[in-house]
């Protein structure tokens, strides 16, 4: 694997993380916040594979990438279940409306 491929992959990781962070900062819908978190986690998975490959230890990087993938899936499932409960109890998914700190 040539060095330029790793460089392109690192640039893609930075873009993915930037998109995820921007989404987490501006989005107000709870389900879309989970989508932004997923985009962020995809950058993390890719950087695990890239770092393992660049360090010459691809197996460790890949096993850690699978660990991140499983943890991210578990977080997504619980977050979506929480969003459904928020919708049931508050009638909305807007984080500004459900916030009680402003009142």
């Amino acid at each position, binding site marked *: 694997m040539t060095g330029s491929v790793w460089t392109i992959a690192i640039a893609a990781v930075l873009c993915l993380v930037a998109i995820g962070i921007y989404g987490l900062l501006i989005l107000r819908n709870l*389900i879309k916040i989970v989508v932004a978190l997923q985009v962020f986690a995809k950058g993390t998975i890719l950087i695990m594979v890239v770092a393992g490959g660049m360090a010459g230890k691809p197996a*460790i990087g890949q096993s850690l990438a699978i660990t991140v993938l499983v943890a991210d899936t578990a977080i997504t499932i619980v977050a979506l*279940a929480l969003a459904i409960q928020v919708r049931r109890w508050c009638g909305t998914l807007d984080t500004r409306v459900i916030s009680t700190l402003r009142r």
Partner: protein
Amino acid sequence: MVIQTLVLSGMLICALQAIRAPRLLVSALWLAGCSALLALAIALLGAPEVGVVELSVGAGLVTIIFVFAINIAGEETAVAGALVPRPLAWVLMGLFLFLLLWLTVPRLLIPALNRDALPFLRAVWEERSLDTILQVALIFSAVLGSIGLLADRREPARAETPARRAGGAQ
């Protein structure tokens, strides 16, 4: 290298559209496309095992759960305004990227000294066996937690006391 660049560019476009799409269902489908292209990119980078798991879990299972959740919660589009003012979001994102570049990338560029030829399956089941056990526990706890959270609201049972019955009769 051209194929990798095209796949990674497509993945970034899908990720951007997943954030920008106004409808939740469309957003989930863009995210599924992003996952599928990420799986392809990972396979092209020399890790087909991780690519297969990403394709089945990231593009398959997570998309199904998103569609299920959107189906239950219902579409709620056109939420006006951003949580944080957009200029501040851009500044914070730039700061985050600067910190990420400053702290991590120099470490990635250190040349590897001792390369190991550890097979992937040995790394997962022997070297990182604790991780594997924790993953199983995490998945089970997530499933149990989501079942508990998705359960319907339980109405409190009304005790029909003699006093209330007498009050109702009057």
